[in-house]
């Protein structure tokens, strides 16, 4: 085949694939709204085009299939036949067959081994208005041909469809006879009408190879780099002569006395800056694709899956023209497909269950895309059963992902986050659709890999919403440049929640048994020391970058915080693939290479106690898995008893102000953050003497502390005599589990001292029912 021909075939393939996607969408829509002539006509035209071109290119099988499909479509379009579910399925099967042949042609193996004679014959029979279901006896004589409710009554009477009792056209016979004559002329007319429109589109747009766009993007990336280098050179004395990778380079413009050359360059830089920014924007735009390129197949996916599950699901897609970068379109394809399948398979209930729950039998699935403050948001909502936090935590405990104590104190939001943990699957049974325990964690990993976030919210019985927030583009991201030791590192701006200056800011880093914590607005923030992490010399902390990685908030201690910079992300080569704290590298304005810190990697270290694990590794002790080393809050209560509870369960540590304690029913409570927080005396939970009232009634002099834990959405205050320590449990000593007395579930060693583990569930039970405002009013009165 010569080049010219090749080119024609290629164009035909590209165009046909696009058409087929559109046909899928239209057919599924038609099933719900069979009256849409416009859609029918569009499907007809698309199949007609494929038929025509395949005849021209000498693809007889494809031509035959397309022709048979076209014949059925013509009858439907003219209102001679009604689009039943069977016919829709048949047409979708036709689309699949065309796709299969095209794929085979694309692979260079001709039209493939199959001839699709069965399908063609089924199509013919359908045109002849015979039931196409295999195994169903052919109806002898039926007075009124199938259509249950034809749009126009006239159609029933006058339509020259297959006359009742006419011979069934065999696979080999000519089916055209059964088709009303006017079909071909109408088709021709349609085509002629179509031509001017097409030409218009062709004049205003061109097909560009993706590779060209990718290379353009790379070139622009380099241009941005050069611009940054130039402005760094202009802005400071740093420049190219500065040893790259050297000490912190202050990018602040210096007021260097009279350098005319620099000033002149400055004025030249201005237009250049504008020019390259515009170019960057323009290339970005060229790479934008509507999210619909991913969504187009979802109506079909939802239909097929819903049919397979015996469910009735309607899919609504809003914001289909929302554009995002091509690279992102590819990256969200699989995660989104997984979420859609999940929603149909697990989210939406069967019609019977829905009716029993007082909901309409048909489930609704809504995909919504929009741009929000420079990011793309894609939301998938269903009105299904929702997620039951209790079921999730129970499952997580069963799988050993969390401890029962953690489960007891877990808020609904935290419980929902569990479904993203590896190895977690809520599906009770493994189905062929999902529920294999992979999935949601992969979705999260994939979305995070492109700098996005995943949030899930759910109301039991009402439905679930998954919200993906994505950057507009992959290639260039804003980042905060921080200095640790002698090196600069880039932190993606999307992770940075706030910056805390340690000097003069009134903030004190507390060193509790080798673990650094920061009290920030009454909240306890675990810290990761960047200097230890990045093998630099430790000094006094310079600044703390508060990072938010999927709701896990922690502080990164750095020596200095510099500017923000637009960085071009490069991936790390194979030799550095195993370094979990870096997600890539970039070239800074002065030409030095800087590593990009990975939020997920850092948060993993923040939560498992990196220093502790390192110490243990050095000591050569057998490593019990890192998750086993729980971080505990150690408190003193009931005289000199030391009790511990997991830090994960603790939301805040507060001092108790005796004056604000009020009587609440049989217990005590304080007004706390606009609500009421019941107080539980830990001493009484563990069977000791309640001693003083929480406010310090008896000898009110001693100040006491409150460990705030959450019960669902509501806080509960555990009153203790003092907070002693926050430290890791020593994993080299096996924990002693089992009830050791009232309110105690075991023992552990922390910092060489034996502590009792508080039974959090028992403590929460002591808090009584969730208080209401009315209850408090009553108590106060």
């Amino acid at each position, binding site marked *: 085949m010569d080049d010219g021909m090749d080119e024609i075939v290629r164009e035909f393939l590209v165009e046909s694939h696009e058409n087929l996607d559109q046909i899928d969408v239209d057919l599924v829509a038609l099933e719900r709204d069979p009256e849409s002539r416009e859609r029918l006509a569009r499907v007809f035209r698309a199949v007609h085009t494929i038929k025509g071109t395949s005849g021209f290119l000498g693809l007889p099988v494809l031509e035959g299939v397309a022709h048979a499909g076209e014949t059925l479509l013509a009858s439907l379009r003219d209102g001679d036949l009604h689009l039943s579910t069977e016919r829709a399925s048949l047409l979708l099967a036709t689309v699949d067959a065309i796709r299969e042949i095209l794929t085979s042609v694309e692979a260079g193996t001709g039209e493939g081994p199959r001839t699709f004679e069965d399908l063609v014959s089924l199509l013919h029979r359908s045109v002849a208005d015979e039931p196409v279901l295999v195994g169903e006896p052919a109806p002898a004589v039926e007075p009124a041909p199938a259509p249950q409710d034809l749009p126009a009554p006239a159609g029933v009477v006058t339509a020259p469809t297959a006359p009742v009792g006419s011979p069934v056209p065999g696979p080999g016979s000519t089916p055209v006879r059964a088709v009303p004559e006017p079909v071909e002329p109408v088709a021709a007319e349609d085509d002629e009408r179509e031509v001017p429109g097409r030409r218009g589109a062709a004049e205003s747009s061109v097909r560009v190879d993706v590779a060209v766009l990718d290379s353009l993007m790379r070139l622009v990336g*380099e241009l941005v*780099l*050069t611009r940054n280098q130039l402005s760094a050179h202009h802005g400071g004395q740093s420049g190219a002569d500065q*040893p*790259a*990778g*050297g000490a912190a380079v202050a990018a602040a413009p210096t007021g260097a006395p009279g350098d005319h050359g620099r000033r002149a360059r400055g004025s030249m830089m201005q237009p250049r800056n504008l020019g390259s920014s515009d170019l960057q924007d323009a290339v970005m735009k060229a790479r934008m694709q509507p999210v619909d390129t991913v969504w187009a197949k979802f109506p079909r996916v939802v239909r097929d899956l819903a049919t397979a599950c015996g469910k009735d699901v309607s899919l609504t897609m809003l914001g289909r023209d929302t554009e995002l970068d091509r690279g992102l379109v590819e990256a969200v394809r699989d995660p989104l497909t997984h979420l859609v399948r999940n929603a149909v398979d697990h989210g939406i209930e069967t019609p019977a269950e829905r009716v029993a729950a007082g909901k309409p039998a048909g489930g609704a699935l809504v995909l919504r895309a929009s741009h929000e403050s420079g990011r793309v948001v894609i939301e998938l909502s269903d009105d299904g059963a929702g997620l039951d936090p209790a079921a999730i935590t129970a499952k997580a405990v069963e799988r050993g992902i969390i401890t029962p104590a953690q489960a007891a104190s877990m808020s609904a939001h935290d419980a929902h986050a569990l479904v993203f943990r590896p190895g977690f699957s809520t599906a009770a049974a493994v189905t062929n659709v999902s529920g294999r325990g992979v999935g949601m964690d992969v979705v999260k990993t994939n979305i995070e890999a492109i700098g996005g976030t995943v949030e899930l919210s759910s109301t039991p019985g009402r439905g679930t919403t998954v919200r993906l927030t994505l950057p507009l583009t992959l290639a260039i991201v804003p980042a905060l440049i921080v200095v640790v030791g002698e*090196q600069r590192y880039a932190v993606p701006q999307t992770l940075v929640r706030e910056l805390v200056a340690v000097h003069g800011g009134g903030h004190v880093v507390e060193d509790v048994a080798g673990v650094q914590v920061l009290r920030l607005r009454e909240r306890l923030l675990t810290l990761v020391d960047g200097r230890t*992490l*990045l*093998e*630099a010399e430790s000094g006094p902390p310079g600044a703390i970058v508060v990072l938010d990685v999927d709701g896990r908030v922690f502080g990164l201690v750095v020596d200095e915080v510099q500017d923000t910079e637009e960085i071009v992300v*490069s991936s*790390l*080569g*194979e*030799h*550095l693939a*195993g*370094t979990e*704290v*870096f997600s890539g*590298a*970039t*070239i800074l304005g002065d*030409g*030095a*290479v*800087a*590593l990009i810190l990975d939020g997920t990697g850092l948060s993993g270290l923040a939560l498992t106690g990196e220093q502790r694990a390192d110490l243990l590794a050095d000591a050569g002790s057998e490593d019990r898995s890192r998750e086993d080393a729980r971080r505990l809050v150690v408190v003193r209560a009931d005289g000199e008893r030391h009790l511990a509870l997991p830090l994960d369960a603790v939301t805040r540590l507060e001092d108790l102000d005796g004056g604000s304690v009020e009587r609440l029913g049989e217990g005590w409570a304080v007004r706390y953050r606009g609500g009421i927080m019941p107080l539980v005396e830990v001493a009484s939970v563990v069977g000791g003497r309640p001693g003083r009232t929480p406010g310090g009634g008896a000898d009110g002099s001693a100040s006491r502390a409150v460990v705030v834990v959450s019960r669902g959405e509501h806080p509960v205050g555990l009153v203790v005599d003092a907070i002693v320590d926050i430290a890791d449990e020593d994993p080299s000593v096996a924990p002693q589990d089992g009830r050791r007395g009232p309110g105690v579930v075991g023992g552990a060693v922390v910092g060489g001292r034996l502590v009792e583990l508080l039974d959090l569930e028992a403590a929460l039970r002591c808090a009584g029912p969730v208080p209401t405002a009315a209850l408090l009013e009553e108590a106060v009165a």
Partner: protein
Amino acid sequence: MSATYVTFSLGEHLVGLPVERVQEVLGSLPMTPVPRSDSRVAGLLNLRGQVVTGIDLRTRFGLPADEAGSGTVVVRSASGPVALVVDRIGDVIDVDDVQPPPATLAGPVRDLVRGAFVLSDSLLLDVRLDAVLALDR
């Protein structure tokens, strides 16, 4: 059968790579160290706007890291360019008649050397580049 080799020194050794595998030869380049990485990774460098991983060939060969490399040999690998930090860059020479590696070679070097060429005044080690680049072995 003669071949052209780029040569460089590494401790006591004179080492060579076929010229086809070498993209370019440069002096010492500023390198950004990568904490928590393999000790044989020298760092990352900026090669005309491209971030390239540098491998410290001294450490790779199990030699003490007492001399800072003065040369960089950028080689082509399946996954893009990789920079090798070497002691000193030598000449580009034509060689033929490869011999088995000398029996006196010991340590990690032994697995990394395919053969040797006898030059007038020294021995040129023919290095297995793919083995050098595969740090996990």
